[in-house]
């Protein structure tokens, strides 16, 4: 059967064949369906390790204990004991090497995240003592009057 209709078909078949030949060269060898099956698990296995290898940046409170004992103790005996040091000072990563010193954020914005009064009775926000930032000693840093680590009023 000689017909112009067949020609494009041969070209397509040729292309398919070419792609099949090149596929093993381009696609990494650890590409496969994995345990989750074709629909959800078709992936490059090595990528799982790539993600696991990412560096942990937040070290959490216990890490600070040894070097900043005083701050740690004072904080843990206060109403702010539930707050992570790194929430206010940023991720410690390799501190004290890198960064050598952590940020000291004295901004009012840091405190009013929790302490700006909002009339939302249905949320636990209403259980935190709230102030109106526009009226409560405006233009002054909170830490001038309150110890951010141990803010307990009256000691």
């Amino acid at each position, binding site marked *: 059967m000689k017909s112009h209709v067949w020609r494009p078909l041969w070209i397509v*078949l040729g292309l*398919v*064949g070419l792609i*099949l030949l090149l*596929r093993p060269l381009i696609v990494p060898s650890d*590409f496969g*369906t*994995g*345990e*989750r*099956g*074709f*629909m*959800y*698990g*078709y*992936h*490059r296995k090595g*990528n*799982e390790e*790539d*993600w*696991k*290898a*990412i*560096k*942990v*940046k*937040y070290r*959490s409170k216990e890490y600070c204990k040894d070097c900043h004992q005083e701050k740690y103790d004072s904080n843990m005996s206060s109403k702010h004991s*539930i*707050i*992570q040091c*790194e*929430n206010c000072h*940023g*991720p410690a990563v390799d501190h004290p090497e890198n960064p050598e010193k952590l940020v000291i954020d004295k901004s009012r*914005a840091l405190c*009013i*995240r*929790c302490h*700006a009064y*909002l*009339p*939302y*009775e*249905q*949320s*636990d*926000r209403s259980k*935190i003592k709230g102030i109106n*930032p526009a009226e409560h000693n405006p233009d002054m840093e909170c830490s001038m009057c309150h110890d951010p680590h141990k803010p307990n009023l009256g000691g």
Partner: protein
Amino acid sequence: MKFSRRELLITAAKGALITALPMGAIKFLEPKEVMAEIKGPGKVRWAFLVDTYKCVGCGLCVKACKNENEVPYDTPVTRTWVERYIIKKDGEMLADSPMGARDGFTENKIRETAVDPKDIAKAFFVPKLCNQCDTPPCVQVCPVGATYQTTDGVVLIDRSWCIGCGYCIMACPYGVRFFHPVHKVTEKCNFCYHRITKGLNTACVDACPFGARMIGNLKDPNDPVTKIVLTERVGVLKSEYGTKPQVYYLGLDENVR
């Protein structure tokens, strides 16, 4: 051209052979594996629990998440975010999440307008993150196999393989996917995969002072999260989509979308 019945059948059989052959030759589809899937093997199935009563809208989880996962801090995109809902007594619902609540909620103004406290019927905060669905639609649509689900249930993105076509961003009913402004590929919450696989909590769980966020293993019956999911009244988001989301919420309101 006239085709006899016999010729037609033979041609059809040949055609089927031709299309089937290359498939088999490269082990593209493995039906057994496709079938064996469904429940999946392994001892771990990560799931998340959000207690919306406990959330105060401070946004420290968002701050921690962006730093931990290197999502540029001053862009509006984020892997997790907190939404504020105000439902007024006249039934009107207001919701916002400025910059994903990176700096928390510090005033009663919502979208530039102040709401009279007397008009508020209920107001609360809802943290959002990737649901790591059991049947993730975002994975189904990926044309290049760059996003996938691990055996322990977390959906990951292969940054070196993603072509940035954006199908998955459109497919996610929860809007958790976005373009990473630096890597120029799709990005989303992966339950801090580098942390949970080392036995740590996710950055947002650690950052939350109020215990509004918890991560756990659903295949461990003694896990606190599993216990709550099994014994308390928990809800999930948009279950009607059939995605089987694995972020459970305590105190979910019908207005939350």
